[in-house]
């Protein structure tokens, strides 16, 4: 458990709950949509941070596990009749038809499936040092897409799934985000979390004092996959339509910027980063259209936003590697020096 359930923690919890509760009165429709997106990205970023920032193993998996979560949730929520209607390329597989859950068991199932896949990936990768994790997870993202396109009896191929019932309102999404953040903080402040940080700071020393680095890295990876699966399920419900093209490397890249900008290893940083990057991404939308510079109209250059994003990432890495929060949390800032 969080050792220091101090006034600070409760304060931030109350602020978050108040923010989620009052958000529908503060923002308009468009704002709420973006906010829901931000909440889901907080879930994804905070859990992605667990393997990348806290354990220090560069992994590029989120798009793969988000895709798994999204498909599992979508297939669980769609009714049998709707599945017959939707699947045009091939008849749905029998177990796909039988798959039917309410939203919360469906999200849980998404998380479980994602973490099982993560475990299968983690075992070969963590036998060697973490270096290969990046490339194996990057490859995994592609393979998931190849699989999704070529298994029309499960995923409806490249057409994807639509008419997913929109069963989550912004309260529920916000509160799930708060619960996930609390759970992840609990892991970070547990003995496992300290072991993860030890692995990040010095793997040799960590294993010398008796930490099973293989186990700790696998635990971090599987846990982060679990919550990414859940986040993916929520994303599917929010978007109501999913296709293999949705879960490209860009999703992972966004999350990477979020946690790097916020400060690798800081959960508060991941939350700030989610607001900045997802909000900023909406704000930067003008870059993709034609721009007026001193009366000179430039042509529309779709993709300019991505150039800006990659520049931000490189510049942060080169000149401000700590990001906004460094490894600190909100509660560290206002605490007196020990």
């Amino acid at each position: 458990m969080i050792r220091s359930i101090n006034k600070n923690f409760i304060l931030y919890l109350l602020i978050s709950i108040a923010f989620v509760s009052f958000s529908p009165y503060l923002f308009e429709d468009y704002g709420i949509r973006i906010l829901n997106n931000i909440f889901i990205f907080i879930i994804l970023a905070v859990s992605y941070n667990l393997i990348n920032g806290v354990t220090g193993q560069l992994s590029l998996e989120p798009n793969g596990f988000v895709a798994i979560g999204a498909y599992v949730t979508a297939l669980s929520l769609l009714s049998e009749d709707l599945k017959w209607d939707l699947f045009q390329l091939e008849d749905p597989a029998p177990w796909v038809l039988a798959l039917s859950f309410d939203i919360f068991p469906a999200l849980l199932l998404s998380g479980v499936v994602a973490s099982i896949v993560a475990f299968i990936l983690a075992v070969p990768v963590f036998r060697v040092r973490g270096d290969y994790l990046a490339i194996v997870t990057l490859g995994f993202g592609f393979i998931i897409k190849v699989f999704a396109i070529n298994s029309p009896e499960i995923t409806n191929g490249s057409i994807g799934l639509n008419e997913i019932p929109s069963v989550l309102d912004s309260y529920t999404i916000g509160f799930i985000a708060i619960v996930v953040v609390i759970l992840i903080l609990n892991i970070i402040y547990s003995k496992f979390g300290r072991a993860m940080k030890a692995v990040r700071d010095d793997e040799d020393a960590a294993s010398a004092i008796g930490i099973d680095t293989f186990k700790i890295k696998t635990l971090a990876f599987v846990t982060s996959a679990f919550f990414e699966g859940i986040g993916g399920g929520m994303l599917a419900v929010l978007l109501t339509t999913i296709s293999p093209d949705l879960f490209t490397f860009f999703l992972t890249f966004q999350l990477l910027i979020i946690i790097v900008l916020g400060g690798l290893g800081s959960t508060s940083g991941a939350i700030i980063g989610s607001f900045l990057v997802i909000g900023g991404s909406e704000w930067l939308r003008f870059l993709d259209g034609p721009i007026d510079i001193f009366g000179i109209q430039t042509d529309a250059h779709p993709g300019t936003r991505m150039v800006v994003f990659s520049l931000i990432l490189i510049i942060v890495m080169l000149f401000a590697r700590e990001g906004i929060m460094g490894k600190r949390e909100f509660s560290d800032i206002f605490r007196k020096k020990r």
Partner: protein
Amino acid sequence: MDIATLLQQLINGISLGSMYALIAIGYTMVYGVLRLINFAHADIMMVGAFATFFAMDSLQSGFVVATFFAIIFSILIGVLTDKVAYKPLRHSPRISLLITAIGVSFFLENIVNVTFGGTPKSFSVPEFFDTIINVGSTILTPTVIIVPVVTLILLSLLLFILYKTKYGMAIRALAFDVKTVSLMGVDANKIIMIVFIIGSSLAAVGGIFWAINYPVLTPYMGLMIGLKAFAAAVLGGIGSVSGAVLGGFILGFTEVAVVAFFPELGAYKDAIAFIFLILVLVIKPTGIMGIDFEKSRF
């Protein structure tokens, strides 16, 4: 399956394998000296292909001139990447270097995307490459001969540099211990630059070959090819140049063979490299020509 078809597939495999090998060499050499999975390497290959396209399409130059233009341009981008993005991070945690590499990769892809537009570009293959040579019942195009021959020449040149020159000796020494080598008076940054020059020029050649064989260029073409080439480098034993070539050929042959013998698995051919990668990590993480870096350095 008759002999002619078998021969045909064999030739296709050599051709595909050569291209993987050319790109894998860059991965393996940079990993050797920097312990960095250079995610931007495949995008250097893409830049090479696009530079050739640009020279031929917009500058109206001939194919040979375009080739040289592309190689020089790719070397420039490769060296610049090292100087601007990787050099300041030599002494930082490895994760910073990896994240920066991904940033550079994404930057190159998107800057090309913005410059050339999102639609795939069709590469006008010089007519010379379209002539068909019949040998018995096997159909050959000049590419299937030129690609392996050029690869072989470049590879021998590289092995000569690595094993017969002072620079090559410095590169090999750097792969084992940067600090000691620097103390002995070798300018490590200069040697790393040479590695990037070699890697980028080979990647550019690979990119041009790729454009001739698959004349549809997209800014994101590097992603998948790079992933496969890296898998080939790991398969051969990362850090070893001959290993990268071997891995490239094994991967090329396997892909061609799977598509030829099991057409129903054709859609999954892109997954083969990935399966190889996982298998190598499970069975022998140091690859076929295995060099165990973890013991020798860091």
